[in-house]
């Protein structure tokens, strides 16, 4: 039988295996999270964490961070970060930084706050 040479192990495949193991094989988070969702560490003692979960928790102790930022800092796809952050929210290690998750761009109060805030920046 002729050997199939149309595929080979490569870094790409290993990368995917690694992502798969990070999320325990899951491909969807336990809750819907936007790239802009802001989370921070809860004030209580965190449950035991390891690996990326611990890194995310440590980053979010300093200040509120978005899914997009965590994905950039940990160099992992946003999908993986969403799965991990959803787990940390479930366990209470992280909390949302706002009750309503993100600002409403059709709310004039928010728009005017953005405008005021940008004008007040000193550059």
């Amino acid at each position: 039988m002729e050997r199939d040479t149309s595929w080979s192990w490569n870094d790409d495949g290993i990368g995917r295996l690694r992502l798969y193991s990070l999320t325990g094989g899951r491909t969807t988070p336990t809750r819907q999270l936007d790239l802009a969702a802001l989370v921070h560490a809860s004030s209580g003692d965190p449950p035991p964490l390891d690996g990326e979960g611990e890194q995310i928790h440590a980053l979010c102790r300093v200040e509120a961070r978005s899914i997009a930022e965590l994905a950039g800092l940990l160099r992992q796809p946003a999908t993986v970060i969403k799965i991990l952050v959803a787990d940390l929210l479930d366990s209470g290690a992280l909390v949302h930084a706002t009750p309503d998750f993100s600002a409403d761009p059709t709310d004039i109060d928010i728009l005017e706050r953005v405008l005021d805030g940008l004008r007040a920046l000193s550059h």
Partner: protein
Amino acid sequence: MTVYEPLATEPGTPPARLAAMKILIVGGYGVGKTTLVGAISEIDPLTTEADVTQASIGHDRTAGTEAKATTTVALDFGRITLRAHGLQLLLFGAPGQQRFWFMWDDLATGALGAVVLADTRRLEDSFPVIEYCEQRGLPFIVAVNEFDPHLRYPADEVRAALALAETVPIQMCDARKPASVQAVLIALAEHAVALYYAQRALSQ
């Protein structure tokens, strides 16, 4: 149930509630999106890999099953915290080519608006994203990155070349300079506020 806990702050100061607001910076390859995000972001700009869902076109629509494919796109990411205003602005630099149309829906949902970063040498690169913003009703302005002083055009020539409505602001900028980028973002926020009042006047 929403889990909410105020951010820890200095003793005696009220807890900070931060809401996130997305702002898109969209433009063709090499137009200066990364530079613009980096000029104003309070953190070193990051690259974020986002999986986006692409509704496939040309499948049997009558069956009611929309086949979807997922693609990974690299976005520039930066942020500006307006602490006194309880906001964190999240800047997403996104490619503007037509083949990335599918991802703008994910990004545009909940976004304040878009800065279409244009290069006068390749104005046609801006057509797809302008068309998208117009169709979707997403507030946008055009920022012309004037990194080459020998290639400057008056705003009305750019407006004519892009067939832009008079109501859409055009802002000349230098994407390397924080104050210039700040002026671009202010112009976008002013435009979003103006659109809000214009639409309210129409509906009354």
